[in-house]
């Protein structure tokens, strides 16, 4: 099959840009799963809801989508904190089955809450600062996607800095390594969990605000984001920010190549195929997992 070089380069560029966003969305989950070992199947629904809140604020306040971050960031921190206290805290020591069951319940609840509030039609943000496109030779890069990718990478490295250099970050990593020892060293583990859960949700809010500059949202959007995040966590493992970013980029490029050489309709299939193969042959992830 003949494929033009331009098309290939364009799809790889798109893949790299979207890969950064995948990594940012998955980082929220990697943080929550890595620190408190809780299995959250509703992660994608958190993303979907954040996208709706971005749409709602942008629409009702008449401000560009990316500015709503000023509100969604704190709102989502509180949301995460409350969800932790109401739901996750109850099953934090329970077997995996209970955690999966309860978060699937949360998934059904959030999905239909969005359906009841905003109906089934896809919604998109009306105004954004990030318009226009840049021509790099033959490759066309929309500004919205470029800025989103840059913001994603910056947030990821900011988070890396927080986890490695601040007192808070060190106590998070200590809790992740050994919860009991950290508790004995004076870390308030339960509060730490709630804060980390809130922080993970805030990261989602950042991603969602920028995703909405170039995508629509519907109540079923969450399933894809949730599975995708788990794929990245499985691949990048808990190897920290670099592992997650690398996995996100690999998946983005794989998707781009698939679109070039096969059929755009099957673009997500290749991601899950890679996922199944990684689980079979590299069960510890490409970049190390416990």
């Amino acid at each position, binding site marked *: 099959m003949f494929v033009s070089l331009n098309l290939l380069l364009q799809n790889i560029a798109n893949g790299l840009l979207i890969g950064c966003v995948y990594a940012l969305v998955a980082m929220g989950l990697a943080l929550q799963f890595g620190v408190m070992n809780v299995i959250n199947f509703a992660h994608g629904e958190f993303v979907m809801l954040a996208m709706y809140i971005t749409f709602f604020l942008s629409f009702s306040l008449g401000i560009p989508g990316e500015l709503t971050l000023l509100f969604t960031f704190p709102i989502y921190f509180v949301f995460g904190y409350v969800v932790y206290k109401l739901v996750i805290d109850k099953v934090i020591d329970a077997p995996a089955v209970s955690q999966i069951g309860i978060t699937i319940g949360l998934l059904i609840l959030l999905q*239909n809450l969005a359906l009841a509030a905003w109906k089934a039609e896809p919604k998109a943000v009306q105004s954004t600062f990030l318009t226009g496109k840049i021509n790099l030779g033959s490759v066309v890069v929309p500004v919205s996607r470029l800025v989103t990718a840059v913001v994603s990478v910056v947030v990821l490295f900011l988070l890396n800095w927080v986890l490695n250099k601040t007192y808070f970050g060190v106590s998070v990593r200590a809790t992740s390594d050994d919860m009991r020892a950290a508790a004995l060293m004076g870390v308030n583990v339960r509060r730490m969990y709630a804060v980390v859960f809130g922080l993970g949700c805030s990261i989602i809010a950042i991603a969602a605000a920028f995703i909405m500059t170039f995508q629509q949202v519907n109540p079923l959007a969450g399933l894809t984001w949730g599975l995708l995040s788990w794929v990245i966590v499985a691949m990048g493992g808990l190897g920290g920010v670099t592992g997650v970013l690398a996995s996100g980029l690999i998946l983005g490029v794989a998707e781009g190549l698939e679109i070039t050489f096969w059929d755009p309709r099957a673009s997500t299939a290749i991601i899950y195929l890679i996922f199944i193969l990684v689980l079979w042959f590299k069960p510890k992830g490409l970049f190390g997992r416990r």
Partner: protein
Amino acid sequence: MDIDKLKPLVVFVVVLCFLPPILGFNNYYVLIVTYILFYAVVVSAWNIIGGFAGQLDLGAGAYVGLGCYAMGTLLIKWNVTPWIGIIASGIVSVFFAAVIGYAAFRFGLKEVWYALATIASVVVLQKFFLVWEEVGGPAERYLPVKYGSIYYLRFATYTPYYYILLALLAISIFINIWVRESKLGFDLLAVRENEEAAEMLGVDARMSKLKALMIYSFLTGVAGALYALIAGYIHPSQFDNSISLEVAVLGIVGGLGSIYSPPASVFILHTLSEYLRSTIGAWIPGVHLIFYGVVLMVTLIFIPEGLSSLFKKLSLKYKPSKREIG
């Protein structure tokens, strides 16, 4: 097998036989209970892998979809009767499950990773059938409209499907009882409690998990074929990962490893949800499922062992004599 173990099954089935006459053969109500029975069959089958073996399989959507497509393709392309198609559906599902399951168990996937690998297989198959134009493709393919025909297994009302699914549910529960009583059942329970210890004692953990998976996927594939017959068409959306999630959560809420309470929970929760759909669901779409999600969460928070422990407590309360004897 102890005949006494089958008594509740007979009562269960006989009571359900009278449901369509009680509903006055109203097509809408019968359709609702038929769908409830479909879920009950799949949840009851899921109990073998999820409840006994403790493996959180989220592949139900894949097996249902393969069931739809195996039966549908045989019928549409080669005019093969669904009676054969239904069995073929089960076999195709078993084959797929065996490949996925063999690799998953061979490479030691557990808990969430097994769950994710199986749900990923649902999405892969859905996209695969979307692209595969000869068999699938983005358009619905309709089954021949030959109502009242035994050969084509198509009926103008839903009552015959209700009884076919009821028979399948009875078979599924019977297999549950049989597995629970057999060596396989004890092997599976041992694997669920502690896989390493079970293997130390000579249980072939991989093989017994694979057997459980194959039984479950056969029943789910057959149920999927019936699902396509009721719907009257086949479409890639029948590879539905929300079926996977719902079946697993109903199995967990029902109580892992309990034989009657997962299907019973399906009846209770779906009836409530359908009641809400018909009363307030018309004003606000999705409100019945909001309630459904809340009930699932609250149940798991307050009764982590699932509804089976609640049923057990109730039965002990009202039958104190049995407790003294037993």
